[in-house]
C-alpha cells in the first residue's frame, strides 16, 4: 500500500503539487488524470524519487521512502519515451536492473527472458531497441520495469507515443499484464477515455490538487464538480434554480430530485448528452427549444438545441431507423427530456470553471 501525506512540490513560487493526500491499495490500477500542467507527472516523479518533495511524506508498505534516491525505492517506472538504453540489446536492457543489483549474469538473463516472455517478446532478446516497433519498445520497457518485482509500477503516459490503433491494443495488454503480475500500477494520463477504460480507480487532478478520486463509473455518473464533469466525458451545462415544483431553467420547469441543490438560489446544472431523450414538438416536463445544428459522428449524432438563451446538446444513437427518418431537422421544435436521476448539480452559478 502506498500512502502520500501532505505531499507538496514547489518550484520557486510556482506550486506544482499542492498538499496531496492519497492512499493506493495493494494491487490496484490507479490513474492520475488531468490536463497538462496539473501536477500529475510531478506527483508520479516524486513517487519514483526523481523529484524531491518540498513537504510531506511518501510511504510504501508502511516504510517512509521520502528521502530515498530512486535506486533504493521498491518502485519501477515505464518512461514516456521508454528510455530503453540504445547501446544495449533488448535482453540486456531487461536484465540491467538485475545486473546492477549484483545478480549473476546467467540468472539475470534467464529472469529477463521470463519477463520478455510475459510481454510476448521472448524471441527478440538479441535485437537492438532501434530495430523494434513503437509497440514492441513499449513492451520491452514494461518487461524491464517488472523484472525486478517492484511493489509499485509507475507508468508515465505510457501510450501517448503510440498511434490510435495500437493504443487500444496496448490498453488490453496492460490490463492483462496487471492481472498477471498483480502489482500496484499507478499510471499518468491526460486521456480521459484511457483512464476510464483501464483503471480501478481514477484520481482527477487540477492545479496541483486532487479534485476527486473514485471508481470510473462513479466518476462518470457522479462527478464531484463542474470541472470533473467537463473533463471526464461530455456534459451539457445550464443554469437554473430549484423551486418547490422542480428545477426551473429557461423559464420552464422540469422534475428533479428535491435535494438536488439548495432551493431558491441560482445554480449550475448539467447532464450527459447520451442519457437524455429528444422528442419532437413540445412535451410537458422537458426543456423545449429549436434544433440549431447536427453533428454526424458515425455511431451517434450530436444535436445542438437552442433553449431560451442557452444551447444544449443531445446525443442520439444512430440506428437504421433513426438514420433514415428519425433525425430532427434544423429549426424544428424539440423537447429534451431529462430523467431526474440523470440530473447533476454543481454549486452556485458563479462557478464558471468548466
Amino acid at each position, binding site marked *: 500500500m502506498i500512502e502520500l501525506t*501532505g505531499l*507538496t512540490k514547489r518550484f520557486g513560487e510556482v506550486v506544482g503539487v499542492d*498538499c496531496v493526500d492519497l492512499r493506493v491499495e495493494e494491487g490496484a490500477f490507479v490513474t492520475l488524470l488531468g490536463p497538462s500542467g496539473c501536477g500529475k507527472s510531478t506527483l508520479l516523479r516524486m513517487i519514483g524519487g526523481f523529484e*524531491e518533495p518540498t*513537504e*510531506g511524506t511518501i510511504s510504501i508498505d508502511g516504510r517512509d521512502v*521520502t*528521502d530515498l*534516491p530512486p535506486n533504493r525505492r521498491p518502485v519501477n517506472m515505464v518512461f514516456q519515451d521508454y528510455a530503453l538504453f540504445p547501446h544495449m540489446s533488448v535482453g540486456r536492457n531487461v536484465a540491467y536492473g538485475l545486473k546492477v543489483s549484483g545478480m549473476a549474469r546467467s540468472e539475470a538473463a534467464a529472469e529477463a527472458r521470463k519477463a520478455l516472455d510475459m510481454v510476448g517478446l521472448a524471441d527478440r532478446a538479441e535485437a537492438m531497441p532501434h530495430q523494434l516497433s513503437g509497440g514492441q519498445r513499449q513492451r520491452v520497457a514494461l518487461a524491464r520495469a517488472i523484472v525486478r518485482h517492484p511493489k509499485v509500477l509507475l507508468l508515465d503516459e505510457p501510450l501517448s507515443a503510440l498511434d490510435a490503433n495500437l493504443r487500444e491494443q496496448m490498453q488490453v495488454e496492460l490490463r492483462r499484464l496487471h492481472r498477471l503480475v498483480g502489482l500496484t500500477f499507478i499510471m499518468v494520463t491526460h486521456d480521459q477515455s484511457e483512464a476510464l477504460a483501464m483503471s480501478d480507480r481514477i484520481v482527477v487532478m487540477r492545479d496541483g490538487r486532487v479534485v476527486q478520486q473514485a471508481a470510473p463509473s462513479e466518476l462518470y455518473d457522479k462527478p464531484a464538480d463542474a470541472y470533473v464533469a467537463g473533463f471526464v466525458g461530455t456534459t451539457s451545462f445550464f443554469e437554473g434554480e430549484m423551486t418547490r415544483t422542480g428545477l426551473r431553467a429557461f423559464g420552464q420547469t422540469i422534475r428533479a430530485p428535491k435535494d438536488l441543490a439548495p432551493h431558491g438560489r441560482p445554480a449550475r446544472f448539467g447532464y450527459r448528452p447520451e442519457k437524455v431523450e429528444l422528442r419532437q414538438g413540445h412535451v410537458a416536463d422537458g426543456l423545449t427549444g429549436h434544433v440549431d445544428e447536427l453533428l454526424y459522428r458515425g455511431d451517434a449524432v450530436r444535436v445542438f438545441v437552442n433553449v431560451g438563451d442557452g444551447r444544449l446538446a443531445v446525443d442520439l444513437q444512430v440506428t437504421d431507423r433513426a438514420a433514415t427518418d428519425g433525425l430532427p431537422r434544423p429549426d424544428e421544435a424539440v423537447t429534451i427530456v431529462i430523467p431526474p436521476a440523470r440530473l447533476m448539480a454543481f454549486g452556485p452559478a458563479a462557478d464558471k470553471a468548466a
Partner: protein
Amino acid sequence: MSLAEPLPEARLRARRWTAMRRYLVLSPPLLWTVVFMFVPYLTLVVYSVWRAEFPLAVPDFQFGNYVTIFTDPQYRNVFLRTLKIASLVSLCALLLAFPYAYFLVFRVRSPGWRLALYMAVVAPLWVSYLLRAYTWKTILGTNGILNSFLISAGLIDEPLTVLLYNQAAMVLTLTYVFIPFMVMPIYAALEKIPPSLHEASADLGEGHLSTFFKVTLPLAMPGVIAGFTMTFCLSFGDFIAPMLVGGPDGQMIAGVIATQFGAALNWPLGSALALTMLVFILVLISASDRLERVGQGRLA
C-alpha cells in the same frame, strides 16, 4: 496539512548528503577552474599594478602601466595595426569560407561528398599550426619557392621582395591558419535552414539573388557572426605568425606582450597590456553573443 513546519533533523541531514554527493562531481572541475583560471587572471591583475625595476617586478599599487599603454603612441599604433590585420584576416576568411559553406550545403547533393569536403576544410586544424605558418614562410621568401618558381618560369627576372615580411603576408598566413574556424559555424548555420524556406521563396517568385539576400543571408548571420568573432579573436592574439612572416612593421599586440615577458622583462607592463587585450576581447565576445542571439530568434 503541514504548514511549512521544519523538517526533522535526520531528514535534513539525509537530504544534505544526497545533495553533497551530487556536488562531488562538480568539485574537481570547479577547483581546477578556480585555481588555474580564475586565480591566474587575478594574479595578472596584481602584476599589472606593480612597478617594473629592471629586471624585477616590485609590489606596488599604481596605474602607471595603464597610463603608459593609453598615452604612449607606440602602443596605440600597435593596437590599431593589430585591429586592422585581424579585421582583414576575418574578412578574407569570410569571403572564402562563405561560398565554400554555401556550396557544401546547397549545391552538393551527396551526403558523402558533403562530409568529405567539410572534412577537407576542418582537417588542417589537426595539422600543426606552426607548420602551416612555416610553410608560407618557405613559399614567400626572397629565395623562396614562389619566387624561384616564377623566375624559372621566366615570369620575373628578380626575386620579388614584397612577398614576405609585411602585413599582406601576415594576413595571408593568418587567413590560411584560421579559415576552418570560419567555415564551421557558417556551415552549421546554413545547414539549419530548412530547404522548405528556399522552396517557399522560389514559390513566391523570388529569384536566386533575392532569395539569397532575403532568406539565406539573414538566417546565416548567427554563424557568420560567430565565425567572424572567433577568427578575429584568434588572429588578434596571435604572435607566432607575426614573428615568422611579419616584418619590422608587422609587430602585433601579442608579440609586444611576449616581448615584455621575455627580453624586455617588464612583467607589470606586459600584464597590463594582456588585461587590456582580455577586456577588449571579452567585450567583443559578449557583443557578438548578443548579436547572435538576436539573429537566432529569427529561426525560432
